[in-house]
């Protein structure tokens, strides 16, 4: 690795108590490690319920981990309780763009208020500095100045998406977490927003974690991609390699399910339960078309330090 990672996640876990079942725990994120270099874009894909959102909330420090370390620029952020992190010096450095550009904007704030708030609260700017910063960042995201006095309901979907991005950029973050940033947009608008995000991350040398269902979009916007299944990363590698030569049977099925991708690998069987999963069984074994006897007595591990690796007994580390 040429450069020290900006974010280093080590053996991170988050378990939730299950209502009505004493002692039972749902393993949302399970012993997960990853890293993001400065300026790098990492994609995170997987089905709903695989723990993507929990991981995002852990990394954005909105949720406390059960175990593990979140080392950001040398500091272990897991030591900060989530409820106090709002006042941590790193709060400004990790920012998030949320899924729904309408729901994530305060309807009683103008676009300018929305973008100025983190400047004042997180970056400690006074009113004049915040005003100047709003103008600057609005220009960066291509939001015309005359729209800054509008409320969310007076903006189109694409304009609201730009406000959400501008708000995240305003306090000059170094890591941007994008949670399905274009899921609520029409394709006609999506293309513009994707190009904007890509330009911004290159210009500002922003590290990004890009979470999305849409694998075609992830491929376009990321350097590397991590595939998650039931709380674990099952495959990680350079985006082109993962999409063109997926190693893990789950990734192969996922890629084959992209519309327009030709022959589909059908996944039969049920998703195994994330509640107290047996530690010695591969989580994908119940649906895996290539399952064999070893998968039921030994859970495969993701080889560390390989460029492109999969947690599967069938795959030899590349």
């Amino acid at each position, binding site marked *: 690795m040429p450069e020290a990672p900006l974010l280093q996640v080590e053996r991170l876990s988050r378990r939730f108590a299950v209502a009505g079942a004493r002692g039972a725990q749902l393993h949302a994120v399970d012993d997960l490690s990853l890293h993001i270099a400065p300026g790098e874009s990492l994609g995170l894909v997987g*089905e709903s319920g695989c723990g993507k959102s929990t991981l995002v909330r852990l990394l954005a420090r909105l949720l406390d981990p059960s175990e593990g370390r979140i080392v950001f620029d040398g500091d272990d952020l897991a030591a900060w309780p989530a409820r106090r992190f709002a006042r941590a010096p790193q709060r400004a450095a990790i920012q998030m763009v949320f899924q729904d550009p309408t729901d994530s904007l305060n309807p009683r704030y103008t676009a300018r208020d929305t973008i100025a708030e983190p400047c004042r609260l997180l970056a400690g700017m006074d009113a004049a500095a915040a005003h100047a910063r709003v103008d600057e960042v609005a220009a960066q995201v291509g939001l015309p100045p005359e729209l800054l006095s509008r409320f969310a309901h007076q903006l189109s979907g694409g304009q609201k998406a730009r406000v959400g991005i501008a708000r995240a950029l305003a306090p000059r973050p170094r890591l941007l977490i994008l949670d399905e940033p274009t899921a609520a947009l029409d*394709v*006609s608008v999506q*293309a513009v927003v994707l190009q904007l995000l890509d330009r911004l991350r290159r210009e500002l040398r922003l590290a990004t974690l890009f979470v999305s*269902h849409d694998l*075609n979009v992830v491929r376009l916007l990321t350097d590397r991609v991590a595939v998650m299944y039931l709380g674990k990363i099952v495959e990680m590698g350079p985006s082109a390699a993962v999409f063109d030569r997926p190693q893990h049977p789950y990734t192969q099925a996922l890629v084959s*399910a*992209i519309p*327009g991708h030709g022959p589909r690998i059908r996944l039969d069987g049920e998703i195994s339960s994330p509640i107290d999963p047996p530690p010695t069984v591969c989580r994908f074994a119940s649906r895996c078309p290539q399952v064999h006897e070893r998968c039921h007595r030994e859970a495969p591990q993701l080889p560390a330090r390989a460029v492109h690796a999969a947690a599967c007994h069938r795959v030899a580390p590349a």
Partner: protein
Amino acid sequence: MTGHAQPPLLEVEGLDLEFRTRGGTVHALQGVGLQLRRGEIVGLVGESGSGKSVLSYALLGISDAAARITAGRARFDGIDLLAADERQLSELRGREVSMIFQSPRTALNPIRRVGLQIEDVLRRHAVHTRAGAVGDAPRGFRERAVQALREVAIADPERRADAYPFELSGGMCQRVMIAIALACRPRLLIADEPTTGLDVTTQAAVMDLLTGLARERDMATLFITHDLALAADHCDRIVVMHAGHVVEQAPSRRLFAAPRHPYTARLIGSTPDRDGSLATLQPVPGQLPDLRRADLPACRFAGRCERADQRCHRERPPLDAGADHGVACWHPLAAPAAAAEAHHA
């Protein structure tokens, strides 16, 4: 129109629909024409606000109270849908024509077991039709509901019939919606974004299930989506809407290989695919025009189109809904090369 001996199962002609609102009259549909043949799977695509859902609601007679149909015809198997009274329509809905709504979690009754929700449909139409096909005994309803769940590939249907929607995953709820819609074996299914919000693997499974059942039962399906690639994968034909107009309709592969309307071409160009790069992604310029305007251009895409001239603003280009490949444009993109034509013929 060439050699289709049978009349279309669904035929919409020159449909105009408007909403009277405080902010003015919204001309939501104008001169919409559409044909579906028996067993045909047709994709209806377009941006949000293009009128896809408004059209399907109008066909089922479940439009918003502010909606007024001001012109046009819609016939289903010889029945005039626009002239039918509420009693006739409620006979038709759920039995002959069914709909799957966008969000299964909100469309299902949250406090009723899913098996009973399927039985409700069966019971409703059994009373009205008095036909033996549905089965009349109370016990028969339960069995038919379980069978309906089995047909949509829900594992352990006897147990799942007693589940509430919150106990099921999103994909499973959508299967229940499909089971409800198909319980009476309709001849026409309208599926409004049936896989929005589902994962790609679940989406693929739900689409395979829907199209598989449609083919098996020879059920015509109007599949509403904004996902062009998904429509191309699963539909025989695609109809493209823009701002309340149908602008193009063609067999799926042909539409993708050689779109003729500039809007269709733009829509395809803005969709990320497996080979393209970010730089080749072309956004559609501008946005849908405000449909309240009194001075809308005759071709509603004219304001966003680089090929538009005076005529496009003045005179509406016609569309042949019965043609194999119809395009409503005065300056369409070049017709497909001879090779593509030959392939299609």
